[in-house]
């Protein structure tokens, strides 16, 4: 237990009669990136808020860096950093003033707070904008500034709540690079996201969370294996015939499969029978006279995993974001 940087057991939290968390167990090892993956309302943000002492759980236990989140909340705050969904920076302060302020609030002496603020902003390529007020910053810059603020106290555990939501593709990739660097330096990172590719690229281990419960946990590869080895993906040339194609091939695998009418794709888990099933599928489709746009064996994506685990796609539950909420709307992030 002492080896775990984050450990939760049976975390429960309700807001009125909305049960945001219904027993969440997590184990995160030091110097790893842990991805908490789930749609909006799954309980991601509630989990992060409990682990960063912003909320107290109704039931269950949570320890971060060896500190109990309720009993040892005060010492715990010295060793964690939090970058939330909304870049929590003061628009009227300059970038540098923002970071210095947070440094002072970590109780660094003024010169040290300033030195670290300059250093960290330089590292995240914000030096040129350091003396501009934060309201002149672009979305990506604000996120980086927010991240600087969460790092100025040199946290052992960093919580990133949807760090790339709303970022443009370039800023997103920059953020990924930063996260990898921080991990290399030994920071333990818990990251929440709705994006499968994000955890696939970054996280050492992933917990899939849905309606307040962890429904699967493991490495990206482990989760993919749960779908059952490889997947045969067939895309028909004429989308109206996707039903026919499904009828021809769905029975080939050991079971399961999915049909996406929108893109005319049929996916069939094939276990370790990939080549044989592929050959048979081509034969059958050819006999039925169904033209193909694409046919391939591939490793399952986390999309396949999510579909297999929850019965719905990862991002379908997405709803418009609301600001300044929490609690009231209950099930969120």
């Amino acid at each position, binding site marked *: 237990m002492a080896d775990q940087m984050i450990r939760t057991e049976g975390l429960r939290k309700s807001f009125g009669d909305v049960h945001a968390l219904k027993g969440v167990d997590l184990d995160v090892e030091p110097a790893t990136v842990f991805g908490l993956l789930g749609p909006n309302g799954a309980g991601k943000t509630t989990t992060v808020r409990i682990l960063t*002492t912003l909320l107290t759980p109704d039931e269950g236990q949570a320890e971060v860096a060896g500190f109990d989140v309720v009993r040892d909340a005060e010492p715990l*705050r010295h060793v*964690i950093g939090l970058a939330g969904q909304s870049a*929590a920076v003061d628009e009227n*302060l300059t970038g540098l003033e923002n970071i210095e*302020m947070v440094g002072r609030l970590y109780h660094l002496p003024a010169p040290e707070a300033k030195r670290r603020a300059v250093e960290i902003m330089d590292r995240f390529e914000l030096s040129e904008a350091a003396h501009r007020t934060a309201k002149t910053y672009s979305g990506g810059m604000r996120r980086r500034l927010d991240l600087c603020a969460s790092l100025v106290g040199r946290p052992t555990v960093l919580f990133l709540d949807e760090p790339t939501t709303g970022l443009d593709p370039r800023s997103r990739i920059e953020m990924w690079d930063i996260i990898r660097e921080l991990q290399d330096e030994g920071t333990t990172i818990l990251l929440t996201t709705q994006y499968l590719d994000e955890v696939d690229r970054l996280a050492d281990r992933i917990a899939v969370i849905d309606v307040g419960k962890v429904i699967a946990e493991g490495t990206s590869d482990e989760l993919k294996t749960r779908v059952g080895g490889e997947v045969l993906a067939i895309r028909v040339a004429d989308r109206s015939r996707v039903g026919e194609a499904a009828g021809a091939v769905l029975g080939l695998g050991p079971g399961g499969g999915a049909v996406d009418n929108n893109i005319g794709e049929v996916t069939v888990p094939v276990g370790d029978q990939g080549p044989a099933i592929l050959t048979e599928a081509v034969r059958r489709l050819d006999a039925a006279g169904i033209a193909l746009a694409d046919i391939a064996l591939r490793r399952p994506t986390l999309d396949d995993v999510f579909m297999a685990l929850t019965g719905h796609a990862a991002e379908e539950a997405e709803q418009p974001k609301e600001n*300044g909420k929490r609690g009231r709307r209950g099930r969120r992030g």
Partner: protein
Amino acid sequence: MSATVTAERTVDTERRLRYAISDGWVLTKRNLITYVRKPDLLVFSTIQPVMFVLLFVYVFGGAMSLALPPGLPYVDFLMPGIFVQTAIFAATQTGVGLAEDLKKGLVDRFRSLPMARSAVLSGRTLADSAAIAFQVILMTVVAVLVGFQLHAGLPKGMLAIVGTLAVGYAFTWMFAFAGLSLKSVEAVQAASFTLIFPFVFASTAFVPASTFPSWLQAWSKVNPVSIWVDTFRDLTLGALSPGGENLMTHLWQSTAWFLAILAIFVPLSVRLYRRT
């Protein structure tokens, strides 16, 4: 309990107090910077009371002087009321500021930091009190320009100004509570003025109570704004003050109201902040 434990506790208490002060000061500075960088906020909230002065003195002044004791110029009667109104209106900024910080997630950041739990509120109310002081002093200049005179000497006049600032400070805590409970800037603004109106306008701030219907006189008599304004009139008008009660009674009642508001809203706000 062993001596070392006691000593550790003392050190701990000392450290907490030191952090409460230094963290509070860090946030006071942050809020003051906002006032300086967004001067429009201060400018417009100062223009408003100036317009009130001009409106009351020049539009209503002539009619109003008929209701006043002979020899008492309306501007001298009016200004203590305007001071208190200025302080209370300016204090609404505390609620707006806190609601903004909540909305932007800044309060979440602060609450995840190892800083003193009191600092967000103490930094906010202190910075807003400084802004109130700035506005009240500016109003004093305007008052002198439109002919305001002290009738009971400078020290008592200064005491009236200090008292006005104390009223403003007490109200920053009332609006801190409003900001933390309502959590939205628009709601805080709407609620603030609804809250303020019966206090500021159904009082002796702008007119003597003698013309009020009896039910309104009854309210005005217990209304803290009336009590404060009457007290400050005693201090600026001296023998000309139409207040009725003697100065000591007024001072005593004013202080009691000031402390009562703090005693109610400081703990309420702190509790709410810890829980949000």
